[in-house]
């Protein structure tokens, strides 16, 4: 990725790897990813299950289980955050760097009232008084368009619907005005109509506050609606990254192209079968030999099976890792 002009980036990872020791070797969840998220930018990260997209950002947040071996680097606002001692990390997490999780049903502590959970973060990070924190919590709920926020503050998580809880989570992540919010599949656990509203909310908040967002999803359609730039991950690596509009117009990597064909389309004839990707992604424990996508790739040649394509810049802002790109 754009290696040297990084001071503008809010978050940039370099050759980030995540390995897990397993019986008789290691399993690589992330195999060296260099990505950057600029200020006010929304980066979409897509890939199927097991492509390492969540692992990558869990590593950045320091949320991986203790067995994980993380190497490489992740600079957040020009400071290394990998391997930071817990107390320093805790000063960044939740205040400057926030995360929204996939399942809003289980991400709120069940025994604390909404208002308490929100206020606590402000008291903890900002040293506000409880009274001020409660007022800020109220305006946070208001900002994410929760009707009757005063009543909601006094309710427990189980009294709210899924979409409502995700709004609370988003409001919570924005409490301390973070520089970057990592949203890991923020809409996957929600109904389609609620999904659309949550995405709309994220878009609105972005224009209002100018925060950077990382939007992780397996659903290209979700990412396409919000992201400025999209990175496609496959088997622990970024295979293509490009400005969203450019990628949607024409993907360069065969995998991205196939992914886009798999997005359901109303205008397609009924008789046509839904396209799908045959085969399976290689397991994390398998050693890499050549291009990881080669066995499933319609364009693969002899060269692909033994030589791994490097991620090369097509022009400034777009890169692809393929021997035989589409364009």
């Amino acid at each position, binding site marked *: 990725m754009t290696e040297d002009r990084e001071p503008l980036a809010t978050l940039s990872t370099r050759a980030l790897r995540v390995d897990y020791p397993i019986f008789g070797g290691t399993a690589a969840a992330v195999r060296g990813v260099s990505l950057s998220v600029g200020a006010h930018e929304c980066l979409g990260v897509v890939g199927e299950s097991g492509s390492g997209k969540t692992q990558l950002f869990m590593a950045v947040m320091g949320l991986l289980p203790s067995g994980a071996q993380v190497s490489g680097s992740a600079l957040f606002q020009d400071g290394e955050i990998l391997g930071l001692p817990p*107390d320093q990390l805790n000063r960044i997490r939740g205040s400057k760097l926030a995360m929204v999780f996939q399942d809003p049903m289980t991400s709120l502590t069940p025994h604390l009232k909404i208002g308490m959970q929100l206020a606590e973060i402000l008291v903890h990070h900002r040293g506000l008084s409880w009274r001020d924190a409660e007022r800020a919590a109220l305006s946070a709920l208001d900002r994410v368009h929760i009707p009757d926020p005063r009543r909601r503050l006094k309710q427990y998580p189980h009294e709210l619907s899924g979409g409502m809880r995700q709004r609370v989570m988003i409001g919570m992540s924005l409490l301390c005005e973070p520089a970057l919010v990592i949203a890991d599949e923020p809409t996957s656990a929600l109904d389609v109509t609620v999904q659309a509203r949550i995405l709309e909310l994220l878009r609105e908040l972005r224009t209002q506050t100018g925060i950077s967002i990382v939007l992780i999803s397996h659903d290209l359609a979700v990412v396409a609606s919000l992201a400025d730039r999209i990175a496609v991950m496959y088997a622990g690596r970024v295979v293509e990254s490009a400005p969203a509009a450019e990628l949607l117009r024409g993907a360069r990597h065969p995998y991205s192209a196939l992914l886009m064909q798999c997005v359901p389309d109303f205008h397609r004839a009924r008789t046509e079968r839904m396209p799908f990707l045959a085969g399976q992604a290689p397991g994390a424990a398998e050693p890499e030999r050549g291009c990881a996508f080669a066995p499933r790739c319609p364009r693969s040649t002899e060269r692909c099976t033994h030589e791994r394509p490097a991620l090369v810049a097509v022009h400034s802002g777009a890169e692809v890792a393929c021997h035989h790109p589409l364009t």
Partner: protein
Amino acid sequence: MARRRLLANPGARISLGIILALVALAVIGPWLNPNRVETLDWSFIAADPGIAHAHWFGTDRLGRDLYVRTLAGARVSMIVGLVASAVSLSLGLMYGAIAGYVGGRTDDVMMRLVEILGGLPLIFFVIFLTVVFGRNEYLLFVSIGAVGWLTLARIVRGQALSIRRQEYIEAAIASGAGTARIICRHVLPNVIGPVIVYATLTIPQIILLESFLSFLGLGIQEPRASLGTLIAEGAGEMEAAPWILLGPGVFLTLLLVCLNVFGDRLRDAFDAGTRR
């Protein structure tokens, strides 16, 4: 929810009522009676129970009023039960939550220690403590508490292990909460349900244990009384003066039965909550 379900149950209501009555009796009963715990009534030695001579439960070999002694003894037993439960509760909660939440090697070491302590025979342990520190009532709290927290630590650890994997814990870490904060704020409150139930079932066990130790002469010492010492005394005179055994015996049985029934119903009430 759980409270409403609990109070809807007649068994729970009756046992709770009896427990409260017994507690009230033990706390204020001795003051409402002209007789004192340690005064000897020379004109009535080993007297039968009766209304006529103001010794309702009779008197013991030394002429002390058994009604007052039973109530005062019950008070001591209850205090021991409560204090020792509180000691084992706080110890077990913190210990179990830390072991379960931190996990890994810390967990291994902490739980092995629990197993080693659990392997020590209680009576030897108490005798050993008495030999080292001399006879002392506070020693009773320590020794009973030291044993009582072991099971609780295991229960809490098990709960904490499953809670550690919940997403709200991850979310709490992601929002910058430290380990101590997460344990106190997010883990402990969520294990409290089963713990409350276990604690209500611990109190009768501890009261029984105290009575047993006092029965053996290792606990409360004369002239103070606990239900255990009174029963021990009564057991010696069982054939000649059965009423010495009867008063404290009935009191202890009633208290234990009611505490157990109540704890049982409490568990049912909480279980129904989790099953939903």
